[in-house]
C-alpha cells in the first residue's frame, strides 16, 4: 500500500446511496486517512467530483465523468485506503493520457476507465504494441471498427477479460485509444449481416463466427 505521496493532489468525492449515519462513518474514515492516502480527499455534496463512493449493491445512476468506487459496510480502513489509492493511480493515468474527444458533438466524450464506458481506438497502434500476438491484432481491429465496452470486447472476441483489460490499458497509456461514455450504444442491438459473414468464413475455412 502506498504511503502519502509527496506530490499528493487535492481530490473531491461525493457519497451516493448511503444512509445519513453510514455516510457520516465513511466521511469520518476518509478524514482519518488524510496524510496516508496518495491524494488529499475532500467530501463535497455537489459535482464536479473526481470520485463517487457508493455502497456495495448500489444500482442507481452515477454522475458521468467521475470514477466510481464501491465500499462494503461495515467499513474497513485498510480496504478504503487501498481503494482510494487505486482510484488515485487510475486518475493520474487518465489525466496524463486523455485526448480530445467528441464532447462538442454531444455524442460522447472522453472519461476515465470504468463500468459502462467504451474504448475507442484513435489510430492503428504501433507495431511494437501488437508484436506477433494475433489476439492483440484482432482486438485492435475490433476497436478500430467501433468503440467497445471491455466486457463486450471479451465476449465477442472470445479473448479473456483480463487480457482485454490489460490490452486496453496499454492502448490508453500509449495515447492511441480513449475512453468514451455514450448515452446509448448505437451498436448494442445490431445483429448485422452475420449470416453472410458466417457463410464466407465457412467457405474460406476461417474460424467463426465470432
Amino acid at each position, binding site marked *: 500500500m502506498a504511503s502519502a505521496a509527496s506530490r499528493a493532489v487535492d481530490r473531491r468525492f461525493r457519497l451516493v446511496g448511503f444512509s445519513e449515519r453510514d455516510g457520516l462513518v465513511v466521511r469520518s474514515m476518509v478524514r482519518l486517512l488524510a496524510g496516508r492516502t496518495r491524494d488529499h480527499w475532500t467530501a463535497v455534496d455537489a459535482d464536479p467530483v473526481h470520485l463517487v463512493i457508493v455502497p456495495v449493491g448500489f444500482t442507481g445512476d452515477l454522475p458521468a465523468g467521475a470514477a466510481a468506487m464501491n465500499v462494503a459496510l461495515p467499513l474497513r480502513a485498510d480496504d478504503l485506503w487501498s481503494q482510494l489509492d487505486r482510484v488515485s493511480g487510475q486518475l493520474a493515468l487518465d489525466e496524463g493520457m486523455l485526448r480530445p474527444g467528441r464532447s462538442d458533438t454531444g455524442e460522447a466524450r472522453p472519461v476515465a476507465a470504468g463500468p459502462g464506458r467504451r474504448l475507442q481506438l484513435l489510430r492503428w497502434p504501433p507495431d511494437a504494441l501488437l508484436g506477433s500476438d494475433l489476439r492483440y491484432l484482432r482486438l*485492435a481491429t475490433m476497436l478500430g471498427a467501433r468503440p467497445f465496452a471491455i466486457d463486450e470486447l471479451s465476449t465477442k472476441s472470445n479473448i479473456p477479460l483480463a487480457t482485454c483489460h490489460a490490452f486496453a490499458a496499454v492502448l490508453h497509456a500509449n495515447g492511441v485509444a480513449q475512453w468514451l461514455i455514450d448515452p446509448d450504444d448505437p451498436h448494442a442491438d445490431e445483429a448485422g449481416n452475420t449470416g453472410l459473414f458466417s457463410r464466407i468464413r465457412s467457405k*474460406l475455412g476461417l474460424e467463426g463466427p465470432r
Partner: protein
Amino acid sequence: MNQEHRILFTGTIGVGKSTAVSSLLGAPLVSEAVDGNGVPVAVDHGDVVLDNGDRLRLYGTPGQRRFEPTWRALADGAMGLVVLVDHARPAPLADLAIYLENFLDLIARTGCVIGVGRMHAGNEPGLDAFADVAARHGVVCPVVAVDVRDRAQVLSLVDLLLVQLESRGG
C-alpha cells in the same frame, strides 16, 4: 434471387492483387469487362459460391490511376477493401495515400485492411509509417506485412476485414 457480394483488392501494378486472390481461391482468375467512364476495362476476379447460392466475388482492381472511374464503379456496392502496398517501390507511402484517397467513401462505409508486401525486417518505412498515413486520412484499420503468395497470409487479411465488418454490424 441470389446476390453478389464484392471485396476489392487494390494497389499498384505488380503488387500482387491477382496473385493474392488466386492464392486465396486456389484457382486462376477470370476477366470481366467493367465500365470505366464509358470505356470497358478488363478486370480480373475470382468467385466463391456460398452455401445459399450467393456469390462472393474478389476483384483485383486495375492498378493505374487512369482507371479511377473503374475503381469508383467497382467500389459502388462493394463490401470491403484490401489495399496492397509494394514496399519495394520508390514511394510506398505515397502509393498508399493514392488508394486511400480514392476509396475513402468505401472505407468509411465498410472496412479496410492494408497489407504491405515485399517488406523485410528493419526496412524503412516501417508499418507504423503506413499507419501514420492511414491516420492522416482518418482511417483506423489493420496495417500488416503480407506475402501475397501465401494463402494463409491472404486469408488473414480477409479475416481481419470480416472482423471489422462483424464489429460494425455489417
